[in-house]
C-alpha cells in the first residue's frame, strides 16, 4: 500500500472550504482504488487528519502520520506549509502545495522536497494582470488597481509581485488589508468607493470572500472588474450575494463543472457505491475539483515514480524523483478523463512549480455555474523569475542551505 495522508480541515473558520477540497482529494484516490485497484497495483491509503487550519494541530498530524509510510503531504494551508517545509527536508517527505504555500518553493534547487505546480500566487497575480492587459489593449498605464487581501501571510504573498508589475506596466496599486475573519468590510469598500479603482483583485479565504463580494455589489462595483484568486472562486463565495455576484471573476488552474468523462467513472465506482467522502454532497464544486486535481497530480507523480523506480511500492525519495520528472500532457489529461482540466505540467529538478498557467472563470448567477472565459495563460516569467530567485536565495541563506546543482 501507498500512504498519502490527507491533512484536512473540516472544522473552524475555513471548514466549509476545507471539507470540499478534502472530499475531492479522497474521492479521486477512492476511484483509483475501486476502479484500477490502486496505482500500479498498490492500493492508496488516504488516512485523514483534522488540522482545523491550525498550525499546531497540523504539525501534530504530520508527526502522527509521518512514520506510517506517508509519501506526500498536502495540507492546504500556507501556515502549516511553512511549518512543514523545514521538517520535510529532514524527514524526507514530499510536500505538495498546489496553488498555495511558499511561492519560491518553485525553485527546486533550494526546496528539494517541496512542489507547488501547476501555479503559485505570483503566477496568479501575474496572470490576472496579463488578463487585464489584454482587456485594455495591452496598456494599463494610469489605471488604478486595488488589492483586497486577507491580512495574513497568504494574503500578503502577491503584494511584492503586483508592485513589480505596477512598476512595469504603470498602473497604480492600492493594497487594502482585511483583518481575519473579515466579517465586516464596510470601511474597506467605502475606500474603494471613494478611490474608484478600475479593477479590484482579491486574495481572500473563508467568509471574507462572501462579505467582499456582497459589499462590492452593495457599492455597485462592476463585478466584471473584480477578480479573485483561485481561493476566492468557489460557489460558496458567491452564494450569499445572490444575483449581485453575477459576473464576478476569479482565477483557476483547474476545470469546473462536471462535464468530464471522469465523472462518469466517479459516479459508477464511488458515488453509486456509497464510497464517496461525506456522501458526495460536494461533487463537482470548484473547491472539490481542485482537491481532486491535487490528487490527480499526486497520482501521476506516483505513476512516474513507479516507472522510474521499477517498483510499485515506492518510498518518498522515489516519489520525489517522480515529481521531478512529472509530465502531464494534454493527452494524458484526456486519457485520465479530464480533458483540458488543467495546464500541461512538466517539472524538473530546478522547476518545481510548473508553467504557472492559470485561466479566468466567471460566475453566472442565474445558472449558478462558473464559466471558463479564457484559455490557460502563462505568467510574466520575466518579472517572476528574479523574484523567485531572490526569495529562495534569502531562504537558503537564512536556513543554511546550499542550493544543489541541477543539470
Amino acid at each position: 500500500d501507498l500512504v498519502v495522508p490527507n491533512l484536512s480541515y473540516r472544522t473552524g473558520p475555513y471548514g466549509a472550504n476545507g471539507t470540499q477540497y478534502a472530499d475531492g482529494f479522497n474521492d479521486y484516490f477512492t476511484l483509483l482504488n475501486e476502479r484500477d485497484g490502486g496505482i500500479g497495483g498498490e492500493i492508496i491509503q488516504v488516512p485523514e487528519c483534522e488540522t482545523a487550519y491550525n498550525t499546531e494541530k497540523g504539525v501534530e498530524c504530520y508527526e502522527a502520520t509521518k512514520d506510517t509510510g506517508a509519501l506526500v503531504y498536502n495540507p492546504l494551508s500556507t501556515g502549516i506549509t511553512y511549518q512543514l517545509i523545514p521538517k520535510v527536508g529532514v524527514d524526507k517527505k514530499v510536500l505538495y502545495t498546489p496553488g498555495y504555500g511558499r511561492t519560491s518553493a518553485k525553485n527546486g534547487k533550494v526546496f528539494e522536497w517541496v512542489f507547488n505546480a501547476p501555479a503559485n500566487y505570483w503566477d496568479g497575480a501575474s496572470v490576472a494582470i496579463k488578463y487585464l492587459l489584454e482587456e485594455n489593449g495591452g496598456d494599463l498605464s494610469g489605471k488604478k488597481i486595488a488589492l483586497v487581501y486577507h491580512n495574513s501571510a497568504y494574503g500578503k504573498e502577491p503584494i511584492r509581485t503586483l508592485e513589480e508589475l505596477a512598476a512595469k506596466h504603470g498602473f497604480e496599486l492600492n493594497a487594502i488589508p482585511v483583518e481575519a475573519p473579515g466579517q465586516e468590510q464596510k470601511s474597506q469598500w467605502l475606500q474603494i468607493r471613494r478611490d474608484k479603482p478600475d479593477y479590484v483583485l482579491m486574495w481572500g479565504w473563508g467568509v471574507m470572500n462572501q462579505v467582499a463580494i456582497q459589499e462590492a455589489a452593495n457599492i455597485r462595483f462592476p463585478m466584471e472588474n473584480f477578480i479573485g484568486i483561485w481561493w476566492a472562486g468557489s460557489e460558496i463565495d458567491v452564494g450569499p450575494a445572490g444575483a449581485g455576484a453575477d459576473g464576478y471573476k476569479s482565477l483557476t488552474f483547474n476545470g469546473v463543472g462536471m462535464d468530464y468523462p471522469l465523472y462518469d467513472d466517479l459516479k459508477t465506482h464511488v458515488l453509486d457505491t456509497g464510497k464517496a467522502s461525506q456522501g458526495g454532497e460536494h461533487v463537482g464544486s470548484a473547491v472539490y475539483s481542485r482537491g481532486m486535481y491535487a490528487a490527480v497530480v499526486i497520482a501521476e507523480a506516483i505513476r512516474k515514480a513507479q516507472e522510474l523506480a521499477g517498483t510499485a511500492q515506492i518510498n518518498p525519495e522515489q516519489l520525489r524523483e517522480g515529481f521531478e520528472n512529472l509530465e502531464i500532457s494534454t493527452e494524458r489529461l484526456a486519457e485520465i478523463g479530464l480533458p483540458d482540466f488543467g495546464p500541461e505540467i512538466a517539472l524538473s529538478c530546478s522547476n518545481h512549480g510548473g508553467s504557472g498557467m492559470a485561466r479566468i472563470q466567471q460566475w453566472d448567477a442565474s445558472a449558478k455555474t462558473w464559466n471558463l472565459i479564457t484559455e490557460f495563460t502563462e505568467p510574466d516569467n520575466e518579472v517572476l523569475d528574479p523574484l523567485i530567485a531572490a526569495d529562495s536565495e534569502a531562504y537558503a541563506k537564512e536556513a543554511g542551505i546550499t542550493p544543489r546543482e541541477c543539470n
Partner: protein
Amino acid sequence: MMDQFFFAAEVLANGLMTGVMYALVALGFVLIFKASGVFNYAQGVLALFAALTLVGIQQGQIPFAHLINAAFGTSLHHFGWTVPAVLAIALTAGVMVALAFLIEKLVLQHLVGQEPIILFMATIGLAYFLEGLGDVMWGADIKTLDVGLPQGISDSIEGATAEWFGYGFFIDRLDIWATVIAALLVAALVAFAQYTKQGRAMRAVADDHQAALSVGISLRFIWVMVWSIAGFVALVAGIMWGTKSGVQFSLSLIALKALPVLMLGGFTSIPGAIVGGLIIGVGEKLFEFFIGPMVGGATENWFAYVLALIFLVFRPQGLFGERIIERV
C-alpha cells in the same frame, strides 16, 4: 473638498449602522451579565447556533444527519420540505428557550455562587460545546439565510440624497432594518429591566445570588428567562449577520466585536450597548477610512479595543455602567 465631506458623512452613517449590528450582539451579553453577573462568552456562538437552527428548520434539514449517516451508513440530509420564515423563526425561538432551560439545568444551577471568572470559563466551555453541537446537528457548510429581509443599497435614500446634496448616499437596507429592530429591542428591554418585578429580580440576582435566593427569587426561573431572552436576541443578531454574510463558523466571532462595545457602554447597561455600539462603529470606521491607509490598514480589530480602553481610563465602569462600589 465637498466630496471629502460627503465621504466622511457616508462613512459615519455606515459606521452607525455597523455599530447597531455590533450592539445587537452586545445586548445579549448585557442581559445575561445584568441578571447573573455571568460574562457570557457563548453569546456569539449562541447567535451562530440560532442562525444555523433557523436555516436548518427553514430548509428542512435533518438534524444530526451526518452523525446518523456515519453510524448507520444511511445518506440522509433533507426532509424534502421547506418551512416558511415566520414559522421557522418561531420554532427557532422555541429551540432557544429549550436551550436556555438546558443550560440552566446542566450548567448554571451547579455553579450558583461561584466567582465570576469561573462562570465566565463555564460559558467558554459552553461555547465549545455549542459550536460542536451546531456543526454536528446542521453540518459545517456555509448556508445562505433568507428570511425575506431586504438587502442591498436603498434606492430611495440614494435618490433622495442625490437630489438634496448632489451625492447619493449608499445605505444598506438590511442595516436600516437592523437599526429599527435594535431600537425596538432596546426600548423593550430597558422597560423590562427597570420597571418590572422580574426585571428588578434579575438585577437582584446579579448582585447577590444567595440573598436573591433568600428572598424567594428563583434563580432557575430568572436564569431560564434571561437566557431565553438572550437566546432570542442572539437569534435576531444571527438573522442579521447571517443574512449579511451567510451562516458559518465565523459568525461566532462577532462576539469579539461586541466586547469593546460592551466595555465602552458598560457591562450592565442596555442603552449602553447601543451607544457603545454607535461610538465603536463610527470610531473604527472613520479611523480605518482616514488613518488606516496611512498605517497599513486592518486597524479595526484593535482600534475598537483601544478606543474603548481610552474611555475606560476615564470611566472605569464604562459610559453607562453601574458605579463600581468601593467601600470598606
